[in-house]
């Protein structure tokens, strides 16, 4: 989708924008204010509020769904428009409770703001109120229907961005609007009121409870106090909270968020995080980011004895094992430790990714993958995902996949061995292929086969791919019109007339077709696939490929990396990888990781002989990520700053480095020293910007530089079946909202460390099982996940001390024996 830059005039101001951009977005990007309640920047226009009414070339249009055309002249305010808007706000105020004092949105309420902005000082409308009950939709969602203005923003964001589609509008009951208002009320206000008076928000599954990923994005977008986090209800007032801009540390999305802090209570004056807010127009959060905020290391003081022991331990350490939930600065400190003292750096989460990225860089001739999720969301209309459990691995990758289906009229191909019932609901043109674990090479070859520009492909690959096509014959039933001669008796004359008539008939017919053996190998039906693929490809121009963690630890990762590079080059695809854990990309770029641990091991938030821990249970306390400042590298290839939300009284890694004679005054003094030859920039931490511009441009930190080199000419090997697993298979995969020990520590995240299986499989397994691996076993409860399908079970890795990485080895799939206990 190519964009054409045009000029339009809004209120006499010349504005540059893109052809086909919504007028509202164009105005916002140029700093012109148009009121709007129901519109969300990255979602489809709902047209519920009608308040964004403007005049474009003399015609009344809604600026949220009117597209910009060259030379358009837009007037955002006129007598009539203002009257209409005022009437709309009056309608919204009908029967809205006036107890603003106790409302959780008090002070940041859009209803309050627009009522004042548009100068509503009297009320002309009335309708009898309806009793609307307060509902607790899930463990985190609280819906006060009495406050709801049915702008449908929650419904829209859940469908267009999150993909759960867990909400819809339902009947409100109660009386209809008096017909007499049709004469007195302005047209749009009356129409909008009629719709509003009929509906209310309900869970879309027809029950009292939502069946969703509990991301809480609906609570963020709610303009009034109707939808709130259950934990926050009536706990504090929004305007007494201090906003601290930070970066979510749970997964590699590195989302921008605000920690909102205040004193804990009358008895306890320490700062506490009350909730998390986000810039929902530009960045959506998942449940872990929104609800997993209280993982700080509390009540830590400087324990000098433990510190001395830690220094000793680091001096004699042969290995430092660490998790990837650390800042770039800390990663650099550890790397310095390796350079100066020769310790081994071990990180089982990142090591396969680092190798994969290096192999990709070699094959592609570029040090980083070519695109990012923001670009995919904005531009692509066909997404292919290989080797990622989209629902669980990374929320932003999933939102991007979903958003493309909804906003860009896109299509999607999802290759994954674990069957998922949610992904197909993202759009009509989503095809899921549940291949066997280990067949990722075949999947990538199929991607090449389907999308690559055949002419430019290397000859050997062309021949290889051609080998998968057979011309076969099949019989199809076809409707043929057949001519039949009937004898009809003419009643009047008594004569028999012969009438020719056409009658449809099903005829079996043999046709030749192209049989794709790659699809067959992946467990799909080539005929059905060819049909649906033809439909999916209609009007598509921009393709994207998302690759996930399954490829990094795959036994044939090197060949997969080459294939990915090949697909990016020859299919014209935007490529984005999913770094496996929090700051995996930063660690992969900064640290030289070793494959295995050796000798005396210091563990940083990981098991070891001496444990540095931000969880408060190790030998020396460390600050958690919400108590640290520093930078993180996100999967969108940006280096973004994060700030300390809470006080921390103990020692940090920089103090240990100082004791070893390698430290700096502050941890953030390391920021400017991040390796420039790996793509970082020599910028001081305090010079990094943060936030978004009005048009959604991300100005957080800086983008990592990708370096070009000569692509290696090494050939890609043919797909091998050696890695294919059969039998009882376990997949290393966390439940949604759980990423690490820190999300587990948060009090609003409940997902258990258990074995997750499809409902049928869970029933067969019973309540509790022992999972036996090659190197050990785990005792786990069985939890049925309604959204899973098939025989493969999922085992989480978010608890570091259970050493799930050790049990699985590098691959995410393992053959196991599951015994009932």
């Amino acid at each position: 989708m190519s964009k054409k830059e045009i000029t339009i005039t809004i209120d006499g101001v010349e504005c540059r924008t893109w052809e086909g951009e919504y007028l509202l977005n164009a105005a916002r990007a140029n700093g012109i204010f148009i009121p709007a309640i129901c519109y969300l920047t990255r979602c489809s226009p709902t047209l519920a509020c009608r308040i964004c009414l403007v005049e474009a070339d003399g015609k009344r249009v809604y600026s949220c769904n009117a597209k910009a055309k060259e030379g358009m002249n837009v007037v955002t305010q006129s007598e009539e428009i203002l009257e209409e808007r005022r009437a709309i706000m009056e309608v919204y105020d009908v029967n809205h409770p006036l107890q603003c004092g106790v409302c959780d949105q008090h002070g940041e309420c859009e209803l309050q703001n627009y009522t004042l902005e548009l100068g509503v000082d009297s009320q002309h409308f009335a309708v009898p109120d309806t009793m609307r009950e307060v509902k607790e939709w899930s463990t985190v969602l609280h819906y006060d229907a009495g406050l709801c203005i049915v702008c449908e923003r929650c419904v829209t964001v859940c469908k267009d961005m999150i993909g759960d589609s867990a909400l819809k509008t339902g009947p409100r009951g109660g009386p209809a609007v008096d017909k007499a208002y049709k004469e007195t009320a302005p047209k749009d206000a009356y129409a909008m009121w009629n719709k509003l008076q009929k509906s209310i928000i309900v869970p879309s599954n027809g029950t009292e409870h939502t069946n969703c990923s509990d991301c809480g994005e609906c609570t963020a977008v709610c303009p009034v106090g109707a939808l709130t986090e259950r934990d926050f209800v009536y706990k504090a007032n929004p305007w007494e909270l201090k906003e601290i801009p930070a970066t979510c540390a749970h997964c590699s999305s590195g989302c921008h968020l605000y920690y909102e802090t205040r004193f804990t209570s009358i008895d306890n004056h320490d700062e506490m995080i009350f909730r998390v807010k986000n810039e929902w127009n530009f960045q959506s959060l998942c449940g872990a980011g929104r609800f997993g905020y209280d993982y700080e290391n509390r009540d830590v003081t400087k324990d000098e004895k433990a510190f001395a022991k830690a220094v000793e331990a680091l001096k004699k350490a042969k290995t430092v094992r660490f998790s990837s939930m650390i800042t770039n600065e800390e990663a650099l400190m550890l790397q310095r430790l390796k350079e100066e003292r020769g310790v081994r750096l071990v990180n089982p989460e990142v090591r396969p990714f680092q190798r994969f990225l290096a192999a990709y860089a070699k094959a592609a001739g570029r040090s980083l993958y070519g695109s990012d999720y923001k670009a995919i969301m904005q531009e692509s209309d066909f997404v292919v995902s290989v080797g990622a459990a989209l629902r669980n691995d990374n929320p932003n990758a999933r939102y991007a996949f979903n958003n493309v289906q909804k906003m860009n009229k896109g299509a999607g191909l999802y290759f994954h061995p674990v069957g998922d019932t949610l992904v197909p609901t993202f759009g009509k043109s989503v095809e899921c292929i549940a291949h066997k674990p280990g067949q990722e090479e075949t999947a990538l070859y199929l991607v090449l086969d389907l999308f690559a520009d055949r002419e430019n492909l290397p000859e050997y690959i062309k021949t290889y791919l051609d080998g998968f096509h057979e011309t076969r014959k099949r019989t199809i039933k076809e409707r043929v019109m057949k001519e039949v001669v009937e004898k009809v008796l003419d009643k009047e004359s008594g004569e028999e007339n012969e009438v020719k008539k056409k009658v449809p008939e099903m005829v079996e017919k043999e046709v030749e077709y192209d049989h794709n053996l790659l699809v067959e190998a992946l467990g799909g039906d080539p005929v059905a696939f060819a049909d649906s693929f033809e439909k999916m490809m209609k009007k598509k121009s921009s393709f994207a490929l998302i690759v996930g963690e399954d490829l990094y630890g795959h036994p044939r990762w090197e060949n997969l990396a080459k294939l990915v590079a090949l697909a990016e080059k020859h299919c014209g695809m935007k490529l984005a990888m999913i770094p496996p854990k929090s700051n995996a990309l930063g660690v992969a770029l900064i640290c030289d990781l070793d494959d295995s641990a050796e000798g005396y091991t210091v563990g940083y938030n990981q098991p070891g002989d001496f444990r540095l821990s931000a969880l408060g249970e190790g030998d020396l306390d460390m600050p958690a990520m919400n108590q640290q400042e520093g930078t993180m590298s996100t999967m969108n290839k940006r280096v973004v700053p994060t700030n300390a939300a809470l006080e921390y009284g103990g020692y940090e890694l920089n103090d240990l480095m100082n004791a070893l004679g390698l430290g700096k005054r502050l941890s953030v003094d390391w920021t400017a020293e991040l390796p420039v030859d790996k793509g970082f920039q020599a910028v001081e931490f305090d010079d990094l910007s943060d936030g978004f511009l009005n048009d959604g441009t991300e100005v957080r930190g800086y983008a990592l530089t990708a370096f070009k080199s000569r692509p290696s000419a090494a050939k890609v090997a043919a797909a091998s079946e050696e890695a294919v697993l059969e039998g009882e298979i376990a997949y290393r995969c966390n439940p949604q909202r759980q990423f690490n020990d820190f999300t587990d520590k948060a009090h609003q995240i409940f997902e258990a460390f258990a074995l997750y299986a499809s409902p049928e499989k869970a029933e067969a397994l019973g309540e509790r099982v022992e999972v036996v691996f090659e190197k050990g076993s785990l005792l786990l409860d069985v939890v049925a996940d309604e959204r899973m399908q098939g025989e493969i079970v999922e085992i989480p890795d978010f608890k570091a001390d259970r050493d799930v990485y050790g049990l699985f080895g590098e691959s995410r799939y393992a053959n196991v024996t599951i015994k009932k206990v």
Partner: protein
Amino acid sequence: MSLEQFKNRNVGTQNYTMLDLGERPKTGWDRFKQVARRSVKLELFTGLKVTFREMIKALFMGEMHTIKYPFEKLPISPRYRAIHEMKRLLESGHYRCIGCGLCEKICIADCIRMDTRYDENQRKEVSEYTINFGRCIFCGYCAEVCPELAIVHGGRYENASEQRASFALFEDMLTPLDQLNQQQEFPGFGAVSPDADKKIKKTPLAY
């Protein structure tokens, strides 16, 4: 005043009016004569008569001019701003405070804090409320901003106690339930004006 007058720093010689007090006794004999004269003229009893008259009035005619302070107190102006009181609703006896936090926000001494929670009746419950009277400057903003007239200034002006905390908690400030019938409406800052009804534009209601 001219500059020269300012510069005259001989205090005592400027604009004083001297009283004519007559001659002061100079010798010892003169002094003795003065005492004897005053004693014989019985001037003392003239003064004592006034005292005696007032005593009779106070003791027997009920015209006492002083109060027995710690036991009795003079009424104080409603505009005086002393220790806060938290009012209750007369109908239900429930406290008026809705926990909106406006007093907390407006307090310029930052001495008000409250804890609120979502209670079983789906209401906002004020679980605790404190004012730090060591910091309170009795400016009255809290009473003025309160939308419910829940927090007001009372007439308790004695701020001395063994512990400041003894009147800083919610229950210390709340009207005791058994004295609810004696609760007075607050007429000071923030109270509804007598002509409030006339100023309101009524909202149409459909029921």
